[in-house]
C-alpha cells in the first residue's frame, strides 16, 4: 500500500464502517485502545481500593469484625475476622494492583495511547495491531492476577516486591499457585508493556506532523516518550527475574535459594533495577499532564520548557543508577550504599527544578480554577511533599531508622496517590471532553478534588508520624508492641480518614457516568488550549484529523502580545508575518 492509500484508508471510507466487534473490542484505533486501558485501570481500582479499606480496618481495630465481609469464606476471613495470612495477601495485592493495573494502564496505556497520535498530529500509532495485542495481553494478565484470589492456598503474600526466599518456596508462606500466578501475570504484563513501549517510541520518532520538531512537542509527549524508553529498558529485567523465580518455585532451580547456592540479594538487585525506573514510569506522565494543565489554565507559556524536558531526561538517566537506595539495610556492602546515596541525592535536583518551573509558570499568569487545574495544583503540592520525604530516606543513617516503617508508606503514597493519582484525575477531567465528546460536571468535579485533597492529607500525612515513631510496615497487628501503643489513636484517625477518602471517590464515579450519558456536549476546544488534539473534531473520528495539521510553533503560546486571542494553537497559520517560534 502506498502512503496515500494508507492515509485514505485511515481517514475512513464510509463503506467500510467496522462492526461492533471491530469498533469496541478488537479495535486497532489508538483512541479505543486508550479507552479500553482506561476502563481496565478504573475497574481495577475497585479491588485495589477495597483491599486498602479492609487493611485499614484491621490496623485501627485489630481482630474486630470487618464490616461487609461476612461473605468472604474461610480460610481468608473467619466470619468477618481477618487472619494474618489474608492480611499479607491484601497488602501484596493492593500494591500489585495499584501499581501494575491502575497506575500503569491509565498513565501509560490510556493517556499514552489516546494522546500520542493526537498530540503529534498522526492518524494512528505506528503499529496498530501490536497496539491492540498490547491491550489484550494486558487484560489477560489482569485476569490471571485476579484468578489468584480463587486458588487454594490463597493469593501471593510476600509483598509487591516479593522478596526471596519468602516468595521462592511455597512452604515459607503456604501460598502455592497464588504466587505462581502472580509471576505469570506480571510476565504477561511485561510483554504487554513492551509492545506498547516499542509502539510509542516508534510513533513519536517517525510520525510527527510536519513542523512538529522534538522541541515543539508538548511536555506530556516528552514524558510519555521517556516513560516508554524506561519501560523498554527496565521491564525485561523484571521479566527475567520473574522467570527465574518461577523456575525456583516450579522446576527446582535455586537462583535465589541459599541452600542451593543461590543469592537472595540478587532478586533485590534485579527487582529494584526495574523498580526504581518503574516509579518514574508512574510519575513522569503525571508531570507531563500537570505541565499541560498548568500552562493552559495560567494562560501562560510553560516556564523553562527546555529545562523541563532536560530534567525529565536526566531523571530517566539517573533513575537507572539509584536502585540500591531500596537496599541500604539489606546487607549490601556499606561502601556501595554510599555511592547509591550520592546518586539518589543527585536525582532530587531535577525534581526540584521541575517544581520551581511549575511555580514560575503560575507567576503573573491569569489563573483559571477549573477542575483539571485543581488536580494539577494538587499534583504539584503533593509531589513536593513526596520528593522532600525522599531526602530523609536517601540519607543513609536516617534510613537505618525509617527503612521499612510507615515513613516509607507515607512517601510512596505522596508520590503515587498525591502524584500519580492526582495526575490521573487531572488528566481525566482535562481530556474527558475530547475522549467522550461531553463535558464533565465542573461543580461535582471541584467538590471531588477538594474533598479528595483534604482526605488524602488526613490519611497519609499522619503516616509520617507513625514512621517517626518506628511503626513497621506490613504488620497485621500493631498492638503487639508496647513501643507502638501511643501511636494507636493515630492509626484510628488514619482509618477514619481513609474511609472518607474511599467514599469520596463515589463522587468521581457518579460524575464520570453521568457525564458520559448526559454531560453537556463538548466543543472542539473547550479549554481554549494550543496542542493539536484540540484541533481535531470532538470526539475525533477514525483517522483523527480532517486534514493532517502543520505545526508552526511550540505548544505553549498563550497570551502572545498582539495575537487576536489569549491562545495560539500550534497549527494556526499566522499570515503574512512568519509565526513567532516558541
Amino acid at each position, binding site marked *: 500500500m502506498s502512503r496515500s492509500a494508507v492515509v485514505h484508508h485511515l481517514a475512513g471510507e464510509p463503506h467500510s464502517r467496522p462492526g461492533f466487534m471491530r469498533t469496541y473490542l478488537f479495535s486497532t484505533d489508538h483512541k479505543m485502545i486508550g479507552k479500553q486501558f482506561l476502563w481496565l485501570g478504573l475497574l481495577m481500582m475497585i479491588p485495589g481500593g477495597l483491599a486498602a479499606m479492609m487493611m485499614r480496618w484491621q490496623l485501627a481495630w485489630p481482630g474486630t469484625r470487618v464490616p461487609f465481609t461476612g461473605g468472604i469464606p474461610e480460610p481468608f476471613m473467619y466470619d468477618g475476622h481477618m487472619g494474618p495470612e489474608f492480611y499479607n495477601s491484601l497488602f501484596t495485592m493492593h500494591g500489585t494492583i495499584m501499581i501494575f493495573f491502575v497506575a500503569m494502564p491509565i498513565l501509560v496505556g490510556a493517556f499514552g495511547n489516546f494522546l500520542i497520535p493526537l498530540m503529534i498530529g498522526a492518524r494512528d500509532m505506528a503499529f496498530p495491531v501490536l497496539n491492540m495485542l498490547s491491550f489484550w495481553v494486558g487484560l489477560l494478565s489482569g485476569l490471571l492476577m485476579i484468578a489468584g484470589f480463587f486458588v487454594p492456598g490463597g493469593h501471593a503474600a510476600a509483598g509487591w516486591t516479593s522478596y526471596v526466599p519468602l516468595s521462592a518456596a511455597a512452604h515459607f508462606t503456604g501460598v502455592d499457585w497464588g504466587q505462581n500466578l502472580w509471576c505469570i501475570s506480571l510476565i504477561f504484563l511485561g510483554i504487554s508493556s513492551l509492545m506498547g513501549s516499542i509502539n510509542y517510541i516508534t510513533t513519536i520518532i517517525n510520525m510527527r506532523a510536519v513542523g512538529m520538531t522534538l522541541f515543539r512537542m508538548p511536555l506530556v509527549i516528552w514524558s510519555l516518550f521517556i516513560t516508554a524508553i524506561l519501560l523498554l529498558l527496565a521491564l525485561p529485567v523484571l521479566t527475567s527475574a520473574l522467570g527465574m523465580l518461577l523456575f525456583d518455585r516450579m522446576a527446582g532451580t535455586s537462583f535465589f535459594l541459599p541452600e542451593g547456592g543461590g543469592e537472595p540479594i540478587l532478586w533485590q538487585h534485579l527487582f529494584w533495577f526495574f523498580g526504581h525506573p518503574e516509579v518514574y514510569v508512574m510519575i513522569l506522565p503525571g508531570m507531563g499532564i500537570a505541565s499541560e494543565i498548568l500552562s493552559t489554565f495560567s*494562560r501562560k507559556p510553560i516556564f523553562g520548557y527546555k529545562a523541563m524536558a532536560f530534567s525529565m531526561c536526566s531523571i530517566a538517566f539517573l533513575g537507572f543508577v539509584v536502585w540500591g537506595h531500596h537496599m541500604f539495610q539489606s546487607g549490601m556492602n556499606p561502601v556501595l550504599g554510599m555511592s547509591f546515596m550520592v546518586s539518589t541525592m543527585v536525582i532530587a535536583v531535577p525534581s526540584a527544578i521541575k517544581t520551581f518551573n511549575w511555580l514560575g509558570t503560575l507567576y503573573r499568569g491569569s489563573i483559571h480554577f477549573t477542575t483539571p487545574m485543581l488536580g494539577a495544583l494538587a499534583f504539584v503540592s503533593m509531589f*513536593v511533599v513526596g520528593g522532600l520525604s525522599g531526602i530523609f530516606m536517601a540519607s543513609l543513617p536516617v534510613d537505618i531508622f525509617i527503612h521499612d516503617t510507615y515513613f516509607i508508606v507515607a512517601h510512596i503514597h505522596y508520590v503515587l496517590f498525591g502524584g500519580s493519582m492526582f495526575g490521573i484525575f487531572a488528566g481525566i477531567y482535562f481530556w474527558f471532553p475530547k475522549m467522550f465528546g461531553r463535558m464533565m460536571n465542573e461543580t461535582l468535579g471541584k467538590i471531588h478534588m477538594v474533598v479528595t485533597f483534604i482526605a488524602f492529607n488526613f490519611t497519609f500525612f499522619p503516616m509520617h*508520624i507513625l514512621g*517517626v515513631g518506628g511503626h513497621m510496615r506490613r504488620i497485621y497487628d500493631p498492638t503487639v508492641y508496647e513501643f507502638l501503643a501511643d501511636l494507636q489513636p493515630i492509626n484510628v484517625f488514619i482509618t477514619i480518614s481513609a474511609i472518607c477518602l474511599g467514599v469520596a471517590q463515589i463522587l468521581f464515579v457518579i460524575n464520570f457516568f453521568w457525564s458520559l450519558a448526559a454531560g453537556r456536549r463538548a466543543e472542539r476546544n473547550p479549554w481554549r488550549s494550543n496542542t493539536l488534539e484540540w484541533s481535531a473534531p470532538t470526539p475525533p473520528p477514525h483517522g483523527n484529523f480532517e486534514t493532517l495539521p502543520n505545526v508552526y510553533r511550540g505548544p505553549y503560546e498563550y*497570551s502572545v502580545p498582539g495575537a487576536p486571542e489569549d491562545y495560539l494553537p500550534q497549527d494556526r497559520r499566522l499570515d503574512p508575518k512568519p509565526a513567532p517560534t516558541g
Partner: protein
Amino acid sequence: MMGWLPENVSTFGERIDSLFYLIYYITTAVFLLVMVVMVAFLFLYRRREGRPALYSHGNNTLEVIWTVVPAIILVILTIMSGVVWQDIRGVIPETDVQVKVIGKQFNWRIIYPGPDNEFGTKDDLEKENDLHVPINKKILVLLGSDDVIHSFFLPHLRVKQDALPGREIAIWFEATKAGTYEIACAELCGFGHYNMRGHLFVDSAEDYQDWQRENWPAAAEVADMREAR
C-alpha cells in the same frame, strides 16, 4: 512531629537523630517556602478581567539558581550523612561482647558464646527472643537467618539490619541506658511477621554479671565439658 521518635539509648543514635532533625528543618522550610509562594501566586494572579498573563518563556538566571542551590544543600547533606554512616556501618570498632542473632520464622534465636567467648563450642547458650547485654559496652551482633529474610530492629537504639540466610552480617551498638526494650522484625517474613517480637535487656554491669552467673555454665563445668570431649 519529631517528638514521636522513641527515646534514644545508643551512642550513635544521637548522631542519627540530629541528622534526622536537620533534614526535617530543611525540608520543612523548603516545603513552607514553596507552599507560601504557590498560594500567594494563586491568589495574586487569579483571573481578572482585563489583566492578561505575562508572555514569558522563562529565565535562565533563575534556572541556574534553583539548580545550584538545592544541589549545594544536597551535597552538604550527603557529606554529613556519609561521615555518620562510615562511623556506624563502615567500620566495626573493637567490641567487648559478641552475640549471634538468628532469625527463624517467627522467633529470634539468641546465641551467646558462653565463658570461652567462642561460638560453636559446647558452652554456647541459646535463648529465644531474650537478648541480654551490658550497658556502656560495645556489642557485636552477628546476624543470620535459618529460613527467609528478617530484619533485626531495635527502635530505641536506632539499629536496623536485614538478617539473611546463607550469610553472616556483623553490626554493633552500645547502649547507654539500662532497661528493657523491644526487638522487632522489620522485614516481611511470613504470616507471623507482625509477632516476631523479642526483648533487649540492657543490664548494669552487676546485673549483667548476675545474669551470666545464673545462666551461663560456670567455668568449672566448662572445664568438665572440655574433658568429656
